[in-house]
């Protein structure tokens, strides 16, 4: 599904979802695509954020000694959980909109 994944990164377009429905993609499948996309984006954000913290943390501490950076695994877990929740929430709105798209509309000029 490489094509579809790349493609959905740019999807904000109801018409294109309408086309997919018209040619036979199920709502369920499209929900899953949106959800996966959102989770992948969330995970990338999480990994990049954590990487930056670990790399840049020591520098920041050298610059400003009062600025204590301590990454505990409990914090990691909490941030991860919040990331997941945000990803789910971010997917909720497009999924609701998706349900309302009428594929018949793609036949109109």
């Amino acid at each position: 599904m490489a094509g579809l994944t790349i493609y959905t990164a740019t999807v904000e377009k109801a018409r294109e979802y309408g086309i997919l429905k018209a040619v036979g993609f199920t709502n369920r499948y499209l929900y899953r695509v949106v959800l996966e996309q959102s989770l992948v984006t969330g995970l990338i954000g999480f990994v990049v954020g954590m990487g930056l913290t670990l790399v840049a943390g020591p520098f920041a501490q050298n610059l400003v000694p009062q600025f204590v950076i301590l990454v505990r695994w409990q914090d990691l877990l909490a941030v991860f959980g919040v990331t997941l929740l945000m990803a789910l929430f971010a997917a909720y709105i497009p999924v609701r909109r998706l349900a309302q798209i009428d594929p018949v509309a793609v036949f109109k000029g």
Partner: protein
Amino acid sequence: MSEGNAVLRMDAVTKVYGSGEAAVFALDKVDFEAYPGEVVVVMGPSGAGKTTFLTIAGALLRPTEGRVEIAGTEITSLKENRLPFVRRERVGFIFQNFNLLEALTGLENVRLVMMDPDSRGSVNRARELLEMFGLGHRLNSLPKNLSGGEKQRVGIARALANNPDLILADEPTANLDSKRGQEVMQLLRQIALELHRTVVIVSHDHRIREVAHRVLWLEDGRFRADVITERDPVCGRPVEVEGARTVEYEGSTYYFCADQCLKLFEATPRRFLEAVEE
């Protein structure tokens, strides 16, 4: 009328939009059948119900009343969540405005709808379809870099991706100049004849009649019954009498779908007449 089983059959299909005072009968007890190997063109003025007819035929819209059968499956009694599978496996749609996905290449647009888009078999099949339609050099072009005619050919390749029995086209030439439109029409005819598919086109473009085996007139949600068709004695397809190529032979008039058939007939009429008698 025609041999074999109908790929598309409609029985007393009615579609009403709205209700009460505002109710519109977009289709009014329509009967229809289409067979493998034939191109049927449904013409009619704006608002006649053509798009309604086509979307009901393609399992996109449910009729208010009546039965619809695609390739032997009665779709009017299927659950809503089964209809996408019917569309994907049994029906190929061709649209007026092509409806390609802009972020995908031609090849990806065709692969996308396949059941297993990443398999080598699918990639090969998508490529073969595009090559067959003269797009071998445009496989990796995005739609925005394709001409209208090229886009429509990608659209046709996509419609054939899953080997559907039924091809449904809504005004497939409306956004094309006459030369490109002509090419697309010939392709649709080829698909019916050579691949033995059923092609149903709705349009108000009169040029489309040239490729039709049968032309039906839809007006106010009904087919007008006064269009007479006869059987082409060479290929066996129904031909609309008005405007058809004809030959007088032994006191009878014969109607032909194309010059090719007419010439074959003229060479050895007996051969075809005996075949018809059988």
